[in-house]
């Protein structure tokens, strides 16, 4: 939980919701992202 200070630096940026934060550590979702990211990186590498 981020404590925001109105009109200060940390007041303006978006912060992740609970669901987003959970998805970042969910083993199932992250295993899927691991595969997707590796494919993306390999596609990038293959361009050279």
């Amino acid at each position, binding site marked *: 939980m981020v404590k925001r200070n109105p009109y200060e630096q*940390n007041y303006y940026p*978006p912060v992740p919701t609970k669901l987003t934060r959970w998805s970042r550590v969910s083993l199932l979702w992250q295993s899927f*992202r691991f595969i997707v*990211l590796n494919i993306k990186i390999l596609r*990038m*590498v293959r361009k050279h």
Partner: protein
Amino acid sequence: MAKLVILGAGIAGHTAALHARRKLGREHEIIVIAPNSKWNWIPSNIWVGVGWMKPEQVTFELAPVYKKQHITFKQARAVSIHPQGDSSHAQPFVSIEYTLPGKAGQTEQVAYDYLINATGPKLNFAATEGLGPEKNSLSVCTYGHAEQTAGILKEHIERMKKGEHLKFVVGTGHGMCTCQGAAFEYIFNLEFELQKAGVRDKATITWLSNEVELGDFGIGGMLLKRGGYITHSRIFAESLFTERGLDWITQAHVTKVEKNRTHYELLNGETGTIEHDFAMLLPPFSGVGLKAFDKEGTDITSDLFAANGFMKVDADYTPKPYDQWKPSDWPKTYQNPLYKNIFAVGIAFAPPHGISKPMKNPNGTPINPTPPRTGMPSGVMGRIVAYSIVDLIKSRNKPLREASMANMGAACIASAGAGLFNGSGVSMTMYPIIPDFDKYPETGRDIKYTTGEIGLAGHWIKHALHYAFIYKAKALPLWMAVPE
């Protein structure tokens, strides 16, 4: 029989050496000259810097690898290049000075037919008063620096456990620094380690950098698709800093580092001071200071090298304002325009200009990141230059291979905390590295290949890459299957 000499055994030079050896028969000699006995997977120095890894986990001895590969290794520092030879040598050569214990200080002249300069950066701590691990700030640029930083961090954690509140500053120690990504990784790993140690509430952590905005990374930032918008990496970075409770000061040129205080001036001309108990500030980079001489012994360093000490290659170095910069200014073959048998790869080549927009404050102080040349492009350059030289040696009538950063993608995985189940990493991909607003008017880059996300998967990839690249660098079976 040809002689290929490679200066430097980092990501670019070592990759070039292994690929050249793979393609060239034993009748051709490959010589690597580097001052350190060890190869270092530099990206993992971040983890050494927080104590999560030991130096032995990010390094290995080069000599046995080169012996097995039939590559001659000279543990020495190149001092000067003589591309026309001299009065007593018809062949071009490099003067070297040994650093190998037992031979330290001895000099030698090493003749070459082809030369690759892959000497990387000089860590120019001297550019800022008081900067550097021998003075008042810390670094993670080498595994030695990182180990020292980890030791000091450990002491600070103990002090916080006893109830002290401490101030941490992480970022860049000069207005012309590059490699913000490394400092970015360090600040998040530091924050993560303080959380783990249960002392996060006892620490104020501040980012201090020369970027015009957070998320610039020396590449002018990236526009990417997030949550139904095309948004700048600044938003992505600010969100992350806010989420982790980190403060930030950008547009800063550090002028002086004292034991517990750093002074800086900003792009708007204001000056400021920040107090700290711990400051990890990266130095600016320059070339390693190689000299060049012609046959008569006249200094021709400025013919081969730009003023910043990096080697001139096939880039367009005509000075021009930001709005006239073009992707085609960037080099493609990395061949020196004067001496066609000399190439420079990785950090050692002179970029034509920045990627981030150059800026100066009212005092005339330049404050903007210089262009990064990260691991993936450095490795690719090493490989394609090795292949070009192999073609030349084998007299294949082929054009030189090309790998322009304006036509190359990069994947950057920035660790944001190390842990198998609770770690995280920021996974960024971009194509091309040099933005092209003529080709991609809305985003500067191909939005399909320019992405960013944070999560545990990023940590897994970063950790897997650590093992994969060390495996590759050790030239273990099928090493070439691991792409650069």
